[in-house]
């Protein structure tokens, strides 16, 4: 049986881009599904783009995922600072009632968010703001140590668009040091760091992510194919790992 290709990070709905300078966009689900199908992606983990608050965007994501249940897996997004005090309650409802499978933290994850993630046994996607942290190491060391049972996914191999090259080194170091840290592969335009990660890290710790539709999933998956990984390793990176993290 052909292993499933699962995109661990895509977006749908209305909101602001994560990248700076921000743009206000509507990430159309049909565009995502069309390009993902062309790229050979079977399923995509989708979440809302940046919003001030996430109660409504998460509900909308859950609704779209219900409509395309064979193709989409929903993640919640929360801002631990702006939504402080309500996070556990919101996340419990989103996971248990709406069927969302993980959470992206918009801002440094608080104890409240991480306690809820540990309780629900869901992975946490967190990309530290590199204007605040010069690399992901400082942002990750404490949370990865304090929450060993939470699986963290650090997107973009630590540096969106490879802009801070040293952040790629830090991301690889974090994965070596902490068994609960995983890296996503989208937007790594300095491919030598992707090659370095593939060479130095166990394939179980690398997750294919496209960041579609802001980025083109056809391009992102081609970048991984260029790694020419052994078939079993490629199957893990392209889908097996995120399936395992989601308990599927």
């Amino acid at each position, binding site marked *: 049986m052909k292993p499933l290709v699962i995109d661990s990070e895509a977006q749908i709905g209305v909101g*602001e881009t994560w990248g*700076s*300078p*921000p*743009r*206000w*966009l509507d990430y159309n689900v049909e565009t995502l599904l069309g390009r993902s199908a062309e790229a050979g992606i079977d399923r995509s983990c989708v979440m809302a783009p*940046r919003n*001030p608050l996430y109660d409504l965007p998460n509900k909308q994501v859950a609704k779209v995922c219900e409509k395309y249940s064979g193709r989409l897996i929903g993640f919640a997004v929360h*801002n631990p600072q*702006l939504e402080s005090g309500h996070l556990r309650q919101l996340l419990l409802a989103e996971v248990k009632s709406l069927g969302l499978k993980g959470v992206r933290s918009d801002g440094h994850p608080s104890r409240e968010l991480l306690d809820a993630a540990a309780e629900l046994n869901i992975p946490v996607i967190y990309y530290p*703001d590199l*204007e*605040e942290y010069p690399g992901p190491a400082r942002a990750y060391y404490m949370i990865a140590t304090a929450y060993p049972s939470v699986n963290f996914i650090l997107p973009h191999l630590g540096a969106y*668009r*490879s*802009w801070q*090259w040293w952040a790629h080194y830090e991301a690889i170091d974090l994965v070596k040091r902490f068994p609960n840290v995983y890296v996503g592969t989208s*937007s790594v*335009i*300095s*491919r*030598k760091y992707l090659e370095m990660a593939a060479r130095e890290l166990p394939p179980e710790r690398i997750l294919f992510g496209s960041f579609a539709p*802001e*980025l*083109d999933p*056809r*391009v992102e998956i*081609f*970048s991984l194919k*260029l790694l020419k990984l052994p078939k079993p390793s490629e199957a893990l990176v392209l889908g097996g790992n995120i399936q395992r993290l989601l308990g599927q």
Partner: protein
Amino acid sequence: MLHGFVPNFGEAENLLDLKEARTVSRKIESSRRAFLTNTGALLTSEVVNRWASGRQESVGQTAPRKQGKPRVIDCHAHAGISREPGAKEEHSAPWDTAADPEIILEHAREAGIDKTIIFPINNTTYKEANEEISQICQRYPERFAGFARHDARTECGKIRSMLIHEIHDLGLRGLKLHTQPNTEILDAAKELGIPILYDSNQHVELFEEFLSSYPTINFIIPHMGSDQSENWREHLLAIDLAKRYPNVHLDTAAVVLTEYLEKAIKELPAEQILFASDEPEIDCRLEIFKIRVLNLPKEKEELILGGNITRLLGGRV
């Protein structure tokens, strides 16, 4: 930190339209096609193989043309070493320390790229670095062509004579800049009939200062105005500039937000878009895939992948 929301895409385009309405030159617009069919470069010099080793071919030799098959040319890559690795901020990144041409060759072979245009990485002055580029081109005359690089701040007053030597004697074909060109540089490029590839470091508006005064120089804006798509607004400004000036060309190196690449290809004549990678830091195998995945009409793709840079260099590449 949550950033303030910005006008949507459509509004941003309208702002550009207003800007365009103020500055567009109808005369230039009407002659766009005629200009694009002409070649800009008029290199007539003999190349002196001063630095070549015994086994190397002369700089002037070009690859034998494969009959019927258009050549694929990457117009943006770096090679050579920094003379001061790590000494200053601009010499401390991996791409400012060393750029190995062997990596480019390996990637280019796999990507189906016939020839790559190389220029130096960051240095304070460029005499030695340009000589190094010439030597690499001599070593692989079928695979590399070279552009000189200069810095208007550190080499002011010497650039014209250096450039004449580099073009006429070292066999380099164009000029790469990272600092705003002064009249010395622009006049020399005009005199030599060479294109200028100028990275204005996320300030596309700086081109406005000289474009109308030098309509015969072919300019190439690398990264479609924004390296690694750091600022998408610069992509829009670069597309707008290319609409208004037929001698402005956009190179496609390291455009991460590929929707702007698609926008440029949709809105501009194919003659103004040049395939580029920024090897060896950026992988040409992935960069060329970004063009090929668009399934463009054959003629359009051939222009972008090599026809246009060949034309800008007068066929001498």
